[in-house]
């Protein structure tokens, strides 16, 4: 009995064959698709950004419409560092991640209280504020012209960035892989379990001794660091930063990516990033002006089909919206279901 319990709980964390295949393919793409490295690099960065959002949305149940705040902060941090101080990329990544973590920690206290709607508005607000600061501080960021003159040194002094994105993809992929493995450990740890518990029922989580708010602060901080590193990767591999990194569409896109791939199992962000970018590429080739029409249609169909892996955050939000439309129906209905 005891051994069965142990086997069952340890089984959650075991690497499955499909996962090995997935990562082998991702690394094999370095050799297999030499002319696609630029887009693969973008996918890897978007995937890391989506994994970051999955940590707070898919696991802890914190919705955000402003995750680009951390992505953009990381991008500017890495760009400015390279331009004015150190142009070695790995140092830049660590610094950008640490800076974004600080920003995440500071703003996490804003999302602890309130409903999903408040969280959406607060996160959106933080991203808007940062976007405007970056716009106004043109002396530092280049404003609307973007941050020019970012030139990166070779990675750890050895691997030079090339025009075809080969080094860039390898660099982003290795970063994604290492951070993914860490995130995978985290979500399968006792701390990760407590996050899911908080998402499901914060009242009961507190009643069994989980310090709810400190855990949310912790995961929000980690998520912000991940997003910052994703932004730094973009700045370093494109050697350019524009206001676009803080734009609302980045926050919306990454949410879309997670909905497409499915939240709450980490691979959703990666699968979603691949699909999103490939579909975007395909549709933009077919109908350059209308690709948003198609992605919108896909989104609507996907959500209405009620996918199993639909993010519980978005689903809860939809429920809350429906409840609000139905007079007299309170939140308690959710709990009454046996």
């Amino acid at each position, binding site marked *: 009995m005891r051994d069965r319990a*142990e086997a*069952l709980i340890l089984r959650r964390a075991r690497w499955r064959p499909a996962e090995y295949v997935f990562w082998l393919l991702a690394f094999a793409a370095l050799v297999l698709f030499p002319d696609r490295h630029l887009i693969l690099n973008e996918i890897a960065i978007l995937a890391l950004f989506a994994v970051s959002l999955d940590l707070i949305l898919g696991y802890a149940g914190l919705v955000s419409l402003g995750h680009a705040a951390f992505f953009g902060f990381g991008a500017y941090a890495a760009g400015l560092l390279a331009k004015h101080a150190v142009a070695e990329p790995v140092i830049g990544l660590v610094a950008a991640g640490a800076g974004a973590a600080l920003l995440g920690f500071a703003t996490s206290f804003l999302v602890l209280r309130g409903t999903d709607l408040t969280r959406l508005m607060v996160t959106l607000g933080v991203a808007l504020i940062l976007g405007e600061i970056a716009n106004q501080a043109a002396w530092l960021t280049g404003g609307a012209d973007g941050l020019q003159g970012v030139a990166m040194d070779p990675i750890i002094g050895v691997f030079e960035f090339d025009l075809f994105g080969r080094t860039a993809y390898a660099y982003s992929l290795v970063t994604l892989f290492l951070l993914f493995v860490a995130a995978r450990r985290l979500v*399968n740890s*006792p701390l990760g379990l407590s996050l899911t*518990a908080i998402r499901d029922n914060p009242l*009961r989580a507190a*009643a*069994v001794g989980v310090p709810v708010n400190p855990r949310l602060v912790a995961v929000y901080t980690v998520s912000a660091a991940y997003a910052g590193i994703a932004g730094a990767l973009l700045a370093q591999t494109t050697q350019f930063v524009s206001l676009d990194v803080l734009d609302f569409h980045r926050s919306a896109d990454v949410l879309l990516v997670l909905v497409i791939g499915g939240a709450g199992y980490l691979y959703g962000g990666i699968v979603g990033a691949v699909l999103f970018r490939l579909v975007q590429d395909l549709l933009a080739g077919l109908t350059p002006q209308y690709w948003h029409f198609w992605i919108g249609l896909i989104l609507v169909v996907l959500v209405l089909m009620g996918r199993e892996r639909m993010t519980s955050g978005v689903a809860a939000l939809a429920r809350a919206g429906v409840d609000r439309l139905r007079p007299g129906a309170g939140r308690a209905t959710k709990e009454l279901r*046996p």
Partner: protein
Amino acid sequence: MTPALETVGLQKRFGGLIATNDVSFRLERGARHALIGPNGAGKTTFINLLTGVLAPTAGRIRLEGEDVTGLRPEARVRRGLARTFQINQLFRDLTPLESIGLAVSERLGGGWDWWRIAGSKGAIVDETAAIADRFRLTDVLDARTGTLPYGKQRLLEIALAFACRPRVLLLDEPAAGVPEAERHELLAAIAALPREVSVLLIEHDMDLVFSFADRISVMVDGALFTEGTVDEVANDPRVRAVYLGEGTDA
């Protein structure tokens, strides 16, 4: 010996309404004590005061002699006061194994471990398996809680409180809504609670009260109406009048 749990002159007002009226109550160590009363008698308010969900207007609450009146709910849990909920408060997406393991690991101080795979600490697994076994959850260890039969969910409800290793356990209508076929398991698990845990049972089900409790307190209109052994209360004509009159076949 100091009682396991004690209230002195406990009062709660909601505006003009007195929901709890000067309740002085003792739960002795190792007791099997039931609190009964008609609907609206203030039993749930009383529980919320004991656990710290509500703050009393007046009066004190002592847990094993220590005044806990001003402590937050979590702090009372850490001092050994756990409760179950009348309406299930479970983690729907976790399995019973994960839910109990979580409660045990938080209590044993492993809750912040983020690099360690859950289940890799022997002591936590040992205790989790023992609790699952005690509450007859071994056959559904790995099923999503949201998909469990209602009776199993009620068992998990108690198991989660038990995983906090309480010295005082408040059971808020543990058998409410459980279908007849699933009741036996639940009642057996409640009957088998270890003797050193003092239990206060809030219940409407008179069969359960009479089979489980050795003492009964009756609450009416927010005040303690009477208290005594099972026989005393069952044969008290005034109690029959206010409460048992609903079902005198007991």
